[in-house]
């Protein structure tokens, strides 16, 4: 009687139909406006209840003159504000260091240029005995700002 009927294939087929049905139904439900409205209202209700609990706990701790979590978190926020100002200052210092480096470089170029200008042009005749002090003095290079990585 059952010969020729593939029970396993039928089960598979039934399974596929069920899964497709589930997929279509859930997609329709979750995507509907009424689902969004209902979940939003439920969320509002649950959150207002939780907020009330939170307020009550806060008032209780206040009455005992205990600090609440939010009090400690406020201090943490103030520390972040100080850190933020330090970060601003670090950025400004970076900019200043960059400017100083550029100035130092420009100064060095200027000194080198003026030394070249001050040096007498090479002459074919015998060198003169008298030389100016400035042309013989060793030129001290301006220090170049070097950024050192902190680890």
């Amino acid at each position, binding site marked *: 009687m059952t010969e020729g009927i593939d029970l396993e294939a039928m089960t598979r087929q039934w399974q596929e139909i069920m899964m497709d049905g*589930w997929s279509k139904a859930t997609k329709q439900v*979750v995507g509907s406006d009424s689902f*969004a409205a209902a979940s939003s209202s439920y969320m509002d209700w649950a*959150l207002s209840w939780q907020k009330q609990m939170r307020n009550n706990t806060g008032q209780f701790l206040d009455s005992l003159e205990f600090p609440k979590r939010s009090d400690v978190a406020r201090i943490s*926020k103030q520390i*972040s504000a100080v850190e*933020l100002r330090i970060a601003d200052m670090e950025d400004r210092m970076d900019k200043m260091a960059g400017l100083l480096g550029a100035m130092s470089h420009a100064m060095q170029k200027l000194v080198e240029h003026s030394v070249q200008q001050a040096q007498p042009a090479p002459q074919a005749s015998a060198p003169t005995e008298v030389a100016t002090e400035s042309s013989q003095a060793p030129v001290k290079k301006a220090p170049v700002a070097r950024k050192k990585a*902190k680890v």
Partner: protein
Amino acid sequence: MKSKETVMKLKPERVALFNKVVTGNVQVEIGTSRRELIYERDRLCLYHYLSEQPARYKTPILLIYSLVNRPSVLDLQPGRSVIEHLVQAGHDVYMLDWGRPDPLDQHNDLNDYVSLFIRTAVRKVCEFAEVPQLHLLGYCMGGCLSAMYTALYPEKVKTLTLLGTPLNFRSEQLLYKWGTHPDRFDSRKIVEAWGMAPAWSFDGYSLLTVDKKPKVMQHLFDNLDDKEFLENYLAMDQWVNDNVSMPGACYAEFCHTCFKENRLIEGRLELGGRRVDLSSIECPVQIIAGKSDHLVPPETTCIENGPFRNVSAILAESGHIGLSVSRGSLKKVWPVASQWFAKNDGGSK
């Protein structure tokens, strides 16, 4: 023969394993690439990924992940890791791990994340690598934060890469219909009630794919004997279920200003009294989006008609998470992205 196979599949030990897997009682190790901690601030950690070979490229890459999940998705398993791929391609890779914020962090807002945490991380990486600039790579919400940072502090950013990052929060996808509705899902109410956006509140995302759940379970049951498949499934499942709480101030500000009012793309977002203008970003920008991404659909990523001047785009054949973990992305997307980093490197090491 077929019936024999079915009987084999229904063996008690197999069914027991299936139960263990779906109830989360089997764990695998994820995020195993070798790394060193170079900076730590409370819960925030900055990691440098180690390589046998010295990096070939001078400019380091800093990865910024979302605040919703753990960043281990970028380094899921050997062979399925963006970080491993980039390191092997010769890049010097760093990652900012936000840790697990708790109620003490509830007042941290977007400005703290952008102007303090990311700014500090960028400075530390530049100091550590002894370079003036770096490549910034942001994933999902981390991409939003990276774009905000680049707009406000462009000096140290050589290039910006936005991976599955929403910038224009207008789409017909369900998440955006819910998130942008003016009278529903008010994020500020969550924060008033909890101080934080609790980790479990992000489980709601699973509703977006609930229609596919039976097919996923069926596929898992059929492939339970495939060791590689099972390991991949467990790694993904472990990561998906590892949501973290988000500081309330940041959550409320992000949902309200970015989702509801779409201020980021419209240039109306202000952080610390400064306007975030994405069109002011001059550095090269790379946008990577997934064609079938239901969380960050391509139209939200500004892959076309975005505010950037110098932009390259990659539209991958994958979903949101597939961008970083699918073998297809690792074969087709990341080699291209890696070459783009190399092209914009400005000299080898």
